[in-house]
């Protein structure tokens, strides 16, 4: 009897034990299967998933007739060839960079340049705020940070942002960017500044040092705020620099830039507008009328279908708008079309009329093509 009971108990134990083992194996198999699937899902077909590559470029043809002493311009130019590379060190730290070849050929006596346009590291503090340090584009205007040819109308970038902001403008420094609320974005940086000189009549564009062994005795600060919701951006920026000649000219003082802009695209209709103004202290800028430099433009557009966009733009700007400056205001009307055969490729054509106070005008048409990826 004892033997029989022992046999029954042992059989029961083995059965229970084998059942438990089988369940565990099944569970383990299911778990393994799930893990393999997750690994496959996570496995990127991209060779280096932590590396981002991109770029853009634009080829321009200008056919302009000069009037009132202005020169003709008939030229073809691969204006910009840019390679973007980024690297993600971890979930919170990223590197971004852009190298640009301007005008296709660089070197002594050649028309072009090789430029490091961006090289910075972003450190995420949390999902909404990021610290940035390095060489970066300043958050001023519409085009300065976003200027891929597929994103704007016209073969050439507009003259106001080029001559007044002055786009493309990068400096070295550090600061922070992010969102104060879901829709209100800020950027605040301390960075290197411009170095204008009497040789260029204190034009702000010629003051860009491009962070190339740049004099940094006087730093600058930029604060930008943008209210950005789908289809609508309204914003502005303020920048302050304590000496616009970096101490090299005793006749200069502080420089302050203020700008406001809007960028609207609702359905087929679009509108961009911007006003920017520099105030430069000191007798030097005042003597040329460069103590006030300003410009504005308005650009309505119509995109009846996704692949075609029509635009018109009126621009006015003056780099010597102070009391000592005379006959320096420039104005330009552009009419043109963008055709996107692919969303990352654009073909452009436009016609420009200038109406400058000094009567030196270049009128004619521009054609171009560009890409961004």
């Amino acid at each position: 009897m004892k033997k029989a009971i022992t046999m029954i108990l042992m059989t029961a134990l083995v059965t229970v034990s084998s059942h438990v083992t089988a369940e565990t194996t099944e569970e383990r198999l299911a778990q393994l299967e799930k893990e393999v699937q997750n690994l496959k899902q996570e496995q990127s077909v991209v060779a280096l998933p932590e590396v981002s590559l991109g770029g853009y470029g634009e080829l321009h043809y200008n056919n302009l007739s000069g009037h009132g002493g202005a020169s003709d311009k008939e030229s073809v130019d691969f204006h910009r060839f840019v390679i973007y590379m980024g690297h993600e060190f971890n979930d919170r730290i990223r590197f971004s960079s852009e190298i640009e070849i301007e005008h296709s050929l660089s070197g002594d006596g050649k028309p072009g340049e090789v430029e490091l346009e961006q090289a910075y590291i972003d450190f995420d503090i949390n999902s909404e705020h990021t610290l940035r340090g390095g060489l970066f584009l300043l958050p001023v205007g519409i085009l300065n940070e976003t200027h891929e040819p597929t994103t704007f109308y016209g073969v050439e970038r507009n003259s106001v942002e080029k001559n007044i902001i002055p786009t493309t403008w990068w400096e070295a420094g550090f600061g922070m960017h992010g969102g104060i609320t879901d829709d209100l974005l800020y950027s605040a940086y301390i960075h290197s500044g411009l170095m204008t000189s009497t040789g260029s009549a204190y034009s702000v564009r010629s003051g860009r040092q491009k962070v190339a062994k740049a004099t940094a005795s006087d730093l600058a600060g930029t604060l930008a705020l943008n209210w950005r919701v789908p289809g609508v951006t309204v914003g502005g920026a303020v920048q302050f620099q304590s000496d616009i000649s970096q101490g090299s000219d005793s006749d200069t003082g502080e420089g302050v830039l203020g700008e406001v802009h809007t960028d609207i695209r609702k359905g087929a209709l679009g509108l961009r507008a911007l006003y920017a103004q520099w105030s430069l202290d000191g007798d030097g800028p005042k003597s040329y009328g460069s103590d006030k430099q300003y410009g504005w433009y308005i650009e309505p557009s119509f995109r009846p279908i996704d692949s075609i966009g029509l635009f018109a733009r009126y621009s006015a700007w003056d780099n010597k708008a102070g009391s000592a400056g005379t006959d320096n205001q420039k104005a330009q009307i552009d009419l043109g079309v963008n055709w996107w055969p692919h969303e990352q490729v654009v073909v452009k054509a436009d016609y420009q009329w200038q109406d400058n106070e000094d009567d030196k005008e270049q009128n004619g048409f521009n054609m171009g093509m560009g890409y961004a990826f």
Partner: protein
Amino acid sequence: MTKSKMASTWAWVMHFKQLPPLLLVTCQLVVASCAVHIQGGAKVDVGDYEAIGPEQTLAVKGDVRLLCKDALGYEYPLGLIIYRRNNNTAAWQIATKGKHGLITSLFIIKEGQIIDCRVLSSKEVRGKQIAKKRYLKQFTGLSLLKPNKLSKRVDGISGATTSSKAMMHAAILALRLDGRQQK
């Protein structure tokens, strides 16, 4: 540092007194915003979409691979697509290329229409707002007009064209994958 240099630096700092109201208000708002977000953390709210059904996967090969390439314009960046299904409702987890790496988004689709969506992960710098409700709610109710065209235009985020387009492509792909399964 010489006295004159110190004086010059102090003068430079003092120049910012021209900006204080704006700067002060911005700093206060940033600090307040930091506090709110640190408290809230960076965790993504994925809601109860997991209740739709058990996680399943779809291998990106054969006709699925071709469909992905047609919808996105490039090879799907991952080997499998995760989804959940319960009768006519499905949740599709889609990865698309942003400016700074992959954007992973989730589209919940019922009877060929998007009923909810959210961004699960993104490293976009200027395109952070694609993860905000105001942007995402534009996708609610959208279906496919043509294989690669949504039933209504979605307004993009200015300065974040790549991120906005990545989301539109993700929506199209999710709708097409759902349509393929429902056939």
